[in-house]
């Protein structure tokens, strides 16, 4: 029995350990400003990673999320700037941009999904391809430079990132909301069960009257929508988008999912694990910022080690079963 507990509790224990290290490293770590900053920053990766949890649980992979986020940012900014001339209400413009963002995200997911299921190309290849396409498109849209959001809208929109409700920034609430919905969807609905089944064995799923293609496509669409939501709260933070936006998000999202205990080969996924995984990754970056002991430039190296160790522990636990 204890080994089962370790498997579920592992990521939480790791989170506590990292947190304690943070406390020991610098007094500023515990300041409310720093903590809410950590939560807000982990929201982007966290929300994307919730979507990735579905994709990976159903046996797929999506490498395009980082570029997709950049592309959607660019589209939103261009759209809002363009609507400035014809619509007076800033709120209406922002709502239209939000709707467009969700639509583009879902559509991008649909494309990834159909290419993997109907054209039967490996998800790795499809999303490697779309990753390149979106990255190139945003660079083209920004003409190699940066797309900036019109100042007047930016002022109104920035509330979405900087606004606070009950002491927590809005992005944190959105993250929490997406997590709860994701949890319910994955663990309590027929769709969630089907994701587990498809990831475990597509042929068993097919013989259990599950529409495998539809389930897989739905996970990619869900991923696209999650990327769109993350982008909606990310755009007001900087008010700009460029070829550098969202770089390596896909790897951080996958890392968060894996650290959280979801199995990369599919068949088993955990939403709360993913949330904790995203928090751990952000915490590490934050701690490295607050200490001189390890250079901040080594952030990626530390994250990489954590992922490898997490998977190693996971495997060990599997083998004992």
């Amino acid at each position: 029995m204890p080994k089962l507990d370790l498997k579920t509790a592992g990521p939480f224990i790791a989170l506590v350990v990292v947190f304690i290290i943070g406390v020991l490293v610098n007094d500023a770590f515990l300041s409310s400003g720093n903590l809410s900053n950590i939560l807000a920053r982990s929201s982007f990766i966290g929300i994307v990673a919730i979507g990735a949890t579905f994709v990976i649980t159903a046996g797929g992979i999506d490498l395009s999320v980082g570029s997709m986020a950049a592309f959607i940012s660019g589209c939103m900014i261009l759209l809002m700037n363009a609507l400035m001339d014809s619509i007076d209400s800033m709120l209406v413009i922002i709502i239209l941009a939000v709707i467009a963002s969700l639509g583009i995200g879902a559509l991008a997911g649909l494309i990834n999904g159909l290419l993997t299921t109907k054209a039967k190309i490996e998800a790795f290849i499809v999303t490697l391809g779309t990753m390149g396409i979106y990255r190139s498109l945003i660079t083209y849209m920004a003409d190699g430079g940066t797309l900036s959001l019109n100042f007047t809208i930016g002022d109104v929109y920035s509330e979405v990132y900087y606004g606070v409700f009950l002491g927590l920034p809005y992005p944190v609430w959105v993250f929490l909301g997406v997590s709860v919905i994701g949890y319910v969807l994955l663990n309590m609905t027929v769709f969630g069960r089907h994701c587990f089944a498809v990831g475990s064995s597509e042929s068993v799923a097919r013989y259990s009257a599950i529409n495998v293609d539809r389930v897989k496509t739905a996970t990619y669409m869900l991923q696209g929508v999650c990327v769109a939501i993350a982008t909606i709260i990310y755009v007001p933070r900087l008010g700009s988008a460029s070829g550098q936006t969202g770089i390596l998000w896909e790897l951080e999202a996958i890392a968060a999912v894996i650290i959280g205990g979801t199995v990369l080969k599919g068949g088993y996924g955990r939403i709360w694990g993913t949330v904790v995984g995203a928090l751990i990754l952000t915490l590490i970056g934050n701690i490295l910022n607050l200490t001189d002991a390890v250079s901040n430039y080594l952030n990626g190296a530390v994250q990489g080690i954590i992922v490898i160790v997490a998977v190693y522990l996971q495997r060990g636990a599997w083998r004992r079963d």
Partner: protein
Amino acid sequence: MPDGNNKSLTFSVRKLRKSFGPVEVLHGIDLTLRGGEVHAILGENGAGKSTLVKILSGFEQLTGGELHISDESGNSKQIDAWDNAIAEQAGVVLIHQEFNLAEQLTVAENIFLGNEIKGRVFLDKKTMRAKAQEYLDILRSDIDPDATVGQLPVSAKQMVEIAKAQAKNARVLVLDEPTAVLTQQESQVLFELIDRLRQAGVAIVFISHKLDEIKQIADVITVLRDGQLVGSYPAAELSKDDMVRLMVGRELSSLFPEMPKVSETAEVVLRVSNLLLQGNSTASSFELRKGEILGFSGLVGSGRTALMETVLGLRRAAKGNLGSVEIRGERVDFKQLSAARSKGVACLTKDRKGNGLLLEKGLVFNFSLFSLHKISALLIDTKQEEIAFEKAVETFDIRMKDRSIAAGNLSGGNQQKLLLAKILEAEPSIIIVDEPTRGIDIGTKSQIYHFIAQLLASGHSLILISSDITEVIGLSHRVAVMYHGEISGVLVGDEIEEVEIMRYATGLKNKNLHQEILDKSGTSNAKA
């Protein structure tokens, strides 16, 4: 290439036994292969042919008995250690039904795969190519040694396999259903080749379900039944009918419960008319009545599962299929299994591990996967799920250490009961069961037969696909027999007995043939 000098070759087994765990599958087989002889091994599915040839070629270990092989000078000696490498050393080579070729490599490279000729440092490609050409020439094959194997047709691949066996200096060549993948013409080419190898003194073991072929090329026929040796006979002495009788011949056991009768006027719940399967030229038609169990017999690969999966929407019908499927008189065209399920049709797959259960998932997860729609609105009602599972454990007598184990940790019989429970939980009225008792113990078998009888009594209709011919006879009201992707006959009443079924299963008899003649004259009349 062996020449006439090892005509004295003998390779024999004495009192050969083989057990898998506690189950003995071969019970003391005697067999003698001689150079220059084609030795056919004949038996029903599960008679032990495959196990026997795997032991001969060293892929399986024997658990009892002796092997003797003669050396070059003809002195026979007993073999102590036997595995695949030793067997190949001794010149015993098995050609699998599934070829063992590296698709990306050339013909020459494949012929010498694992057997490469080396120069001082690098491979001596030139010599290998020349030698490969030599082997192909002996086989009178015009395959290009530089062709990539993946691009070759099946018959050429088989030729490469045989050339490869020659490169290993095969003295005993074991061919496991070599013609299953060949057209009739290609088979004839193979037979000519076998004949040349025979003249060169190679001992050939030939397995086939096609009695015509055996009649054509075999010198000696050994018949197996249920892992027992029935006997070895000179081929000239056996007629095809004798072969069938020797393969079958056993008493029906009293394993089977009394099946409720079906009235001739019972409603037709499933009608399949002229359904054309992929890769087939003959369409299939059959009917299933309410409360009836229709058996489907036939040899492995005769198309029984493919037919049912096409009906269910798990496979596409052939292009240009004009046939139809009707459920209780309503025309249906299932594209997804879920569509079939909503019309009350379900199937119990024969591949329990590959298609039936998620072995690493829990019991409840597996149990409800096919019937989740019944217990969920927006969310799954897990309480109801739990109750349904407990009830199924009771009904189907599923035995387990505790509730939290994974499905893969159940015994085979209990896995089968769980799978049956999973399918029936969706409350289908027409159930297709495919090999429902394969690989399970006799006790569970009998339990499953009783479940089937209960289902019939409560108004369900069943299709039973089984390679266990006694099972088909013991349970079915009528028996459809398939041969080469077509229903060669639907047998009723006294026709339902082993020898008759085997005649239809091996193509000796075919009810369609008369039908076809009628059909043809019918169309020509219509045209005229």
